[in-house]
């Protein structure tokens, strides 16, 4: 297993494009910290975002994993291109001839997906922890380490999304088309969800919950409306929030099921294809 990961790491380490994108990705993750610097100072109206409670433990875990998951597109580009370039350079063929089995090939790509996800989780955790320690109003250990469920959600979300990208890379073989397909898929999910809500509202939430991209985005719900300031504003307007912001077990299971399906699908496609 370690050998398979080493093989992938040689491929990534030597590619300048991958290196730039990876560095760019983690650089941007670091930029979450810059949110803290958002300050408006217009006469009497003073606004400092960091003071609005977004960096309070444990809310920060929710907020940061939500923001960080937008950046996953960066790594998605790497994953799609690392797969499709194996086709265009015919190195996939050569790897197999050199003695890698098709199963090992898929496994090595999946291990890379896991590695990216783990590193991203650790990185976001570290950045958030530092930010929290600086800005949080609460610093009891019990509070700091509560609500870590968002990292489970974040990890599963990344693994699921990257597995989808991997599958598309293998299916479509061209990185631009694969990314186009990803966008197309998002649009299809959106349109069919719209139609369902219009024609069959009763079953719509049930059905759309199983859509792969929708299931991934359900893992971490938007944290904006949970913010104290927003909440109190809404309360004044008479709106009430009864939303459950937790990471739902069913969503985790749905995404993991999709992940398994994507990886198995990748293997099945590769197995039956003549290269």
């Amino acid at each position: 297993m370690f050998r398979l990961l080493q093989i992938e790491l040689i491929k990534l380490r030597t590619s300048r494009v991958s290196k730039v994108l990876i560095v760019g990705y983690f650089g941007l993750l670091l930029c979450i910290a810059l949110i803290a610097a958002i300050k408006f100072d217009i006469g009497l109206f003073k606004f400092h975002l960091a003071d609005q409670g977004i960096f309070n433990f444990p809310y920060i875990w929710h907020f940061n994993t939500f923001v960080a998951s937008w950046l996953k597109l960066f790594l998605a580009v790497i994953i799609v291109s690392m797969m499709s370039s194996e086709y265009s350079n015919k190195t996939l063929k050569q790897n197999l001839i050199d003695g890698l089995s098709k199963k090992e090939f898929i496994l090595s790509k999946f291990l890379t997906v896991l590695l990216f996800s783990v590193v991203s989780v650790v990185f976001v955790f570290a950045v958030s922890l530092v930010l929290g320690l600086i800005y949080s109003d609460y610093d009891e250990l019990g509070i700091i380490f509560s609500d870590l469920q968002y990292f489970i959600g974040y990890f599963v979300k990344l693994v699921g999304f990257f597995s989808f990208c991997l599958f598309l890379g293998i299916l479509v073989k061209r990185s631009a088309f694969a990314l186009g397909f990803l966008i197309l898929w998002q649009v299809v999910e959106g349109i069919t969800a719209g139609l369902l809500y219009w024609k069959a509202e009763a079953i719509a939430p049930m059905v759309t919950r199983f859509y792969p991209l929708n299931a991934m985005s359900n893992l971490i719900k938007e944290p904006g409306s949970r913010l104290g300031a927003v909440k109190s504003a809404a309360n004044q307007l008479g709106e009430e929030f009864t939303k459950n912001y937790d990471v739902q077990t069913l969503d985790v299971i749905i995404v993991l099921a999709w992940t398994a399906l994507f990886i198995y699908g990748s293997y099945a496609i590769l197995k039956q294809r003549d290269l």
Partner: protein
Amino acid sequence: MSQTILTLSHLTKKFGPITAVNNVSFTIEKGNVYGILGPNGSGKSTTLGIVLNVVNKTSGDFDWFDGTETTHEALKKVGAIIERPNFYPYMTAEQNLQLVCKIKGVPEEKIEEKLELVGLLERRDSKFSTFSLGMKQRLAIASALLNDPEILILDEPTNGLDPQGIRQIRDLIKLIAQQGTTILLASHLLDEVEKVCSHVVILRKGESLYTGTVDGMVASHGFMILQGNDQHLLMETLENMNAFSSIKTEGDLLIAYLKQPLDAAALNRQLFEKGIVLSHLEKKKESLEDQFLQITKNN
């Protein structure tokens, strides 16, 4: 008892309605140099693709090393290049070979030795994308040799190269063959196969027409080219000797096809005893090309 490296039995591959490989069977024994001959589109590359795990067979079977291992494990003991050299363009020669070492599970010490063998040692740190086709092909050979393979499989290794490059690759193949490595060389270039191979498999339209040694390809004993002081007498004498199947005149020369073994010295002595002095005597075998054309025509 020679060791079997690869056995194909009744291997068939269909691409939709087209049968690319039809019921091909042959065996590769250790230590020989095999040529797979056949015109373009005769199924050479597909056959190799099947045994190399990149093309799925439709029916039939193949076994590496007596079938005791899975194909991908067996391939770690094989060196193969099919069609064009395939490497990561953004990696250097050395990095590419390191990757192959990892895949095959062999130590990286061999890299230097093999780069030296193919004459690319001083270009080890150049990116693959900067290489000429000849250099790429040589790097591919170095890569295929990294594990000191039981068998080296080459598919059209001189395709697209300039004469100099062709010479380099051929010399390399001969060198490797001399070291005792079993080689399987697919080519449509007959002289290429003739120069290095001891055994041939001839394919046409996916079917194998002949499998065996190069010498045994045609049951012919060759032919004599003669010129004497008296051509009429010479012709008459040869006809009476009963050793030739046919005799024809080509300009000043007589060409006599043997139907039984006869060496040139013995013929010369017999003719001299009958008072015929030869000014030209040459014994020749049909070229592989003649034999190949004959086999593919007859079938």
